[in-house]
């Protein structure tokens, strides 16, 4: 009796916790939803000209049309491909450079200075140069993304490696760990939080670089779709493109944050878990 009672109570408690979880997760979306609603009302009431700012309903219609005729998926795929290749290259190169300069003084002397100099250049200003160097194909767009995303990854990982607590390194030496063991067991996992932070920054920069690259000179991609729309005064298509960019940024950030929760379980739930 009492057992079933306590069980139902615990089920209740669980349900209560689920509800409060749903509320916590959903209330963050409340104000954006209200804003969209307000926008729709303002458009329908004729307060905003449809040429300047089409209504959300109209945008949904346009988006659906773009999806149906295949132009949105095709362009999205092209953009995604450029972003992922560019970002992948940045991740690979950034991690390798940070490892070299983080793990050896000589490496730092050789690698760090030029990267710090390059970092101060506004990467977007390199777009015309990249077009001259690499033509108007895929290379300049991918490489611009790579260049932009490289620095956050390199800088954060380098800092992470350098700020490993020397007490851990001492401890590892007294335990007789070899250099490669120390790198594998202590340095890399210790620098992982910084690397992930760098990855999040880098993703943001990657999308930014992509937008510019695709608007300067492109035959396809979301940016190209938007530039085309400008010629035909299609505000709605431009806005759809903006929304797609925004969603891409949100989704990629969410992916990294989920990865963080899993990779840094020792840290995130440090105070709670077993």
């Amino acid at each position, binding site marked *: 009796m009492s057992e079933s009672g306590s069980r139902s109570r615990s089920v209740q408690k669980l349900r209560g916790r689920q509800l409060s979880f749903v509320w916590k997760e959903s209330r963050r979306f409340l104000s954006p939803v209200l804003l969209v609603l307000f926008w729709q009302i303002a458009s329908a009431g004729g307060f905003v000209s449809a040429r300047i700012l089409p209504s959300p309903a109209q945008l949904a219609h346009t988006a659906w049309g773009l999806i149906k005729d295949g132009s949105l998926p095709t362009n999205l795929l092209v953009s995604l491909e450029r972003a992922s290749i560019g970002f992948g290259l940045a991740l690979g190169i950034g991690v390798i450079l940070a490892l070299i300069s983080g793990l050896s003084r000589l490496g730092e002397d050789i690698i760090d200075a030029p990267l710090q100099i390059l970092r101060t250049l506004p990467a977007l200003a390199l777009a015309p140069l990249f077009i001259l160097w690499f033509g108007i194909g895929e290379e300049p767009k991918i490489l611009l993304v790579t260049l932009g995303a490289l620095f956050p990854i390199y800088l954060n990982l380098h800092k992470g490696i350098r700020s490993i607590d020397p*007490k851990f390194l*001492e401890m*590892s030496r*007294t*335990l007789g*760990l070899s250099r490669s063991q120390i790198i594998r*067991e202590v340095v890399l996992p210790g620098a992982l939080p910084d690397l992930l932070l760098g990855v999040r920054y880098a993703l943001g920069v990657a999308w930014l670089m992509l937008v510019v690259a695709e608007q300067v000179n492109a035959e396809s991609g979301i940016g190209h779709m938007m530039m085309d729309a400008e010629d035909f005064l299609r505000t709605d298509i431009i806005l759809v493109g903006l929304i797609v960019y925004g969603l891409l940024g949100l989704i990629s950030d969410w992916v990294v944050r989920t990865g963080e929760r899993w990779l840094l*379980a*020792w840290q995130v739930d*440090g105070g709670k878990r077993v």
Partner: protein
Amino acid sequence: MNTFFSEPENGEPRAVDTTRSVHVSGLTRRFGDGPAVLDHLSLDIPSGQFVALLGRSGSGKSTLLRTLSGLDSVEYGEVARPKAVSVVFQESRLLPWKRVWQNVVLGQKGPEGKERALQVLKEVGLLHRVEAWPLTLSGGEAQRVALARALVRNPSFLMLDEPFAALDALTRIHMQNLVLSLWRKHQCTALLVTHDVDEALVLADRVLVLEHGRIKVDLPVTLPRPRRHAHPVFEQLRSELLHALGVQNA
């Protein structure tokens, strides 16, 4: 089996003997042009002895310990010690990204790692925390894991660098008893660096006081264990040590 290391001059340690004892002779260490931190220090610790090292801040305790643990190289003098050495530091120094048992067998090879971790974690009474993340441990638990990490390597020479300094008084008493029973069981030579005269007298066979890089007092403690603070000999030893440390009217 236990290879011994001795340092000639400026060199890597070399194997010279096969027991568990520790020999230091003429060890001198200075940083830059400052005064010698260790000044022609000589010390012999016979196999299996539990030695406590007292001394005020700056007396050279840490430098001696770092040299014995192999973190600092020997510049002048000779040091011979067993190869199998473990150090327990004041902070547990557990890697927060490895679970408790992974910390215990860090760097150990072999597939039966977890089995061995479980075995020593049982000895320190932490079987219920095997899978825990270190950040969730209390200070006492973390130090017990650090102790388990030291013991899993079957050290011939166990060094403890103020291991209980950051713990509360009750936990400290538990830890002292634990260290004593583990020392008996594993029959290793032990060197405990501490600020606490009572702790030294409760645990050690012999208490050293270090001053200006030399051993000022070398006091055998022959009281049977467990030792009581109220024992007259204990009292007498304590005031002797406090006097040596510069505390008057103790």
